[in-house]
């Protein structure tokens, strides 16, 4: 990992068009600004970790669980829609 010391107002440039600027340091909270083209997704790492974890939990449910959900939803739909298709 590249480690750089920066002061408030200083920036780091990544590649041609991503600029990260230190905006404010207050205690253990650092506010940073990210200037990047819209094609570059900028996400909080913990958010991606949560979504990854959620996908892992969702992946490959047992056939019985899937059938159970399908049955439940079908019952619900019949109740909501009445006899119409």
């Amino acid at each position: 990992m590249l480690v750089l010391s920066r002061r408030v107002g200083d920036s780091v440039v990544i590649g041609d068009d991503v600029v990260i600027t230190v905006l404010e340091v207050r205690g253990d909270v650092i506010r940073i600004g990210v200037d990047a083209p819209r094609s570059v997704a900028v996400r909080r790492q913990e958010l991606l970790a949560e979504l990854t974890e959620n996908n892992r939990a969702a992946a490959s449910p047992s056939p019985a669980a899937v059938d159970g959900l399908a049955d439940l939803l079908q019952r619900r739909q019949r109740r909501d829609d009445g006899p119409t298709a």
Partner: protein
Amino acid sequence: MPDATTPDSGPGAIPVLDMVSPMLGFPEHRRFALARLDEEGTVCDLRSLEDTDLRFVVVPPSLFFDDYTPEVADTVAESLRAESGDDLVALVVVTLGEASGDATANLLAPVLVNPRHRLAAQVVLDDADLPVRAPLLPAGAAAR
């Protein structure tokens, strides 16, 4: 109801989707088959063609979440070769709980599909207030 464990009946029978951005945590899986698990298409099966043991249950969110209209950046639409939002179909990934009534849906990162070009992507929306685990059904729905 089709048997979810039966392999696809042949090429062309099931739309094969290329993931332009993969399911988060599953970057090596780029091609999926999307199949209905019931006649109404309420519950669908998104199965990896790289490893058919990997699959996700997805549902159309409009059936469960009235006010949910995912908004995506132009760059996302472009990556899916969509000319407008109308070209895209949203599906949400369902996590099945202990009981069927405990199922949750991920509204923050839907799977967007361009059926015409057979492209799909799991997209993280910019609206950070959207839940990752929204109950699919109201509490107690399973008991009724």
